[in-house]
């Protein structure tokens, strides 16, 4: 691919790309790059958080009414799973820095497993919403039981006969957009962690070259962090 560059690569580390002078320069460049990438990710989600803020401020009734249809227990379970996966990911980075290959492989595998559990739970939640017809915009056709379940949920006296505000589908539109985009990021994260895992099994990382684990970890923490905001904003409204 770059035959002409290999002449000055003989006395250089095999991991050092031709455009860099030192491994440290390469590491710092990658780190700055990944942080800037994370900023762009935050801004991508910021658009949706902004949509959320505008509609929540203008139509609080929709959010208070509709959030009851979300399953708090499953949401909490997923939150716990992701926080745990962040912990194992951080530990994996440490293991890579210390050159503990077995620990690194195991911790990455656990992180990946957590991601699978998260998606499985998410699938169950989406499936329930689908069955109940609680979808977005033009696809919002709640079936009877769901509507009743929603009404029955609050035992508070005054709200027992509340029939729900108009345009409840806006909430579900926002719910599916935010969690859907987040789920896509989980899937991307799984691909990245899977790739790092394969490299780790081959023994590609050492205390002097652990950058990809570090970068993947930073990305994974951001994905977790976004969920930590999504969970209370969507499931725990009062």
């Amino acid at each position, binding site marked *: 691919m770059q035959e*002409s560059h290999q002449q000055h690569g003989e006395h250089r580390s095999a991991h050092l790309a031709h455009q860099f002078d030192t491994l440290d320069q390469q590491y710092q460049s990658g780190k700055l*790059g990944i942080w800037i990438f994370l900023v762009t990710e935050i801004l991508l989600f910021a658009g949706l958080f902004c949509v959320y803020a505008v509609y929540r401020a203008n139509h609080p009734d929709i959010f208070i009414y509709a959030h009851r249809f979300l399953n708090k227990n499953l949401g909490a379970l997923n939150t716990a799973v992701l926080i745990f996966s962040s912990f194992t990911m951080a530990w994996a980075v440490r293991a890579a820095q210390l050159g503990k290959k077995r620990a690194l492989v195991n911790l990455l595998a656990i992180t990946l497993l957590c991601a699978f559990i998260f998606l499985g739970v998410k699938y169950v939640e989406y499936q329930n919403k689908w069955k109940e017809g609680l979808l977005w915009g033009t696809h919002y056709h709640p079936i009877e039981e769901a509507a009743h379940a929603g009404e029955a949920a609050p035992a508070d006296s005054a709200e027992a006969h509340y029939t729900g505000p108009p*345009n409840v589908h806006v909430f579900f539109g926002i719910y599916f957009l935010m969690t859907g985009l987040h789920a896509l990021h989980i899937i991307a994260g799984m691909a990245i962690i899977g790739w790092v895992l394969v490299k780790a099994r081959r023994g590609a990382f050492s205390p002097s070259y652990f950058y990809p684990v570090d970068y993947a970890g930073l990305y994974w923490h951001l994905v977790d962090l976004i969920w930590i905001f999504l969970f209370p904003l969507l499931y725990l409204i009062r």
Partner: protein
Amino acid sequence: MNTVSSPATPAAAEPEHAASYLQDGHGIKSWIMTLDHKRIGVLYLISILAAMFLGGLFAMLIRTELLTPTKTVMEAETYNRVFTLHGAIMIFLFIIPGIPAALGNFVLPLMLGARDVAFPRLNRLSWHLYVIGALFAIYSLIHGGADTGWTFYTPYSTTTTSAVVPIVFGAFILGFSSILTGLNFIVTIHRFRPPGMGWFRMPLFLWALYATAIIQVLATPVLGITLLLLIVERVLGVGIFDPTLGGDPVLFQHFFWFYSHPAVYIMILPAMGVISELVSTFSRKHIFGYKAIAYSSVAIAFLSFLVWGHHMFVSGQSPMANMIFSALTFSVAIPSAVKVFNWVATMYKGSIKMDAPMTYTVAFILLFGIGGLTGLFLGALATDVHLHDTYFVVAHFHYTMMGGVLMAFMGGLHYWWPKIFGRMYNEKLANIASLMIVVGFNITFLSQFIMGSLGMPRRYYNYRPEFESYHQWSTAGAYLQAIGFILVAVYLIHSLRRGRLAPANPWGSATLEWRCASPPPTENFAQQPTAGDPYDLKPLVFDPKLGGFTYRAESAEGVA
């Protein structure tokens, strides 16, 4: 260190027979799969020039249709699609990537004395994404194109039957291309500066690219999510922007302009950077007010995020918001004027040489001045109500985008052409063409200022007969420009084979890219050179044997 910059490796000492990047590998694959920033820059250059040609073709169709007050050559529906495609192609495929991705990619690592950008693979991916995005735009074009205007305003864009989704998806992909370029440039500037180049020793083009990259990285993701929401809305019927479903179309406008206003600074900031390089070189004088120009780039980048609401003065926004946005809009004039002042002060008592890059530079300062000042008319609330959506707005942004960015792009293209391809073009033809373009430009758009202030609305297919002569002047000017651009294409293509071989430093600039050969070898520099003051032109003398400039020999008092 107070020594006058004495370069470690003067141009003359470069090995003569190092293979240039153009000869390093042959065949299509060696180009489209290249990791060399110079080749990627050339690929971008070819792509954006193709886009410019296509967008220009649509401009000619628009102007031809508007020759008469009623139907001239096309139906109203076709006309709507043509002006949409003109805008979308020119903005997303030409002006936004134009200077940073084509010229910037080529020049930035060279100016740093580096071997490449920090992430060559991302750089290549960015070009591949550009091509994919462009293919989606062409797909939309084949399927009749969109008729929404380049702004894709809802609810029309979610209800029209034209091919909106492919072109919006294309713009979405192009956004990622832009983000990756910006990310790459920020990291490269942070990590690859050579010894001797502190932040305030950087060429001003790098400051401009840096400020641009910040906007690209911070604003483009918001466009990404906006366009994604628009697609989801059309395909799945989500209803976030649809008033019949309880959605808010004005929210779309806020989101759109939150990106698209900073985007006009993505276009103009690199152009200002090019002008800062050119004005110093061709005035044979150190740039005036270096720090003021550098800081004003950053100030413009910062303010660019706070003024999007001035596109929405008549959208039903609150009067308070209107006043704040208006005041912030006026504040952008300050850093812009600081730049213009410094460029003019650089020319003052300089030894001005009106080579082609300089004619475009002078044109830029004049036309950007007009474009910028008319922006203040539009930023004022009361006049904007009258001028909103008229040809005055069209003329204003063409003076900034075309009179500003395109002139700087042309200037930069002529300036770096010998470096990129190693050939000189015909100077006389270049001057004639630049004159035709500048004169044609003014005929085209000055008449639009007048008819706009008289009330001619933009985007109209038919118009009242009293506007006919203005439209005809405008069209005549557009044809003159077209001839000028064709002339440019002719002599530039001719120069590729027949042009005089370019010396390493034909213009006598002190920035690092002129210290390697023209065209540069694949590795750029054998060793990263030490940077001096990028605008200290005094040690450079013209050497008739080389046909270019070279550094004055250290011990030769008698030579100078």
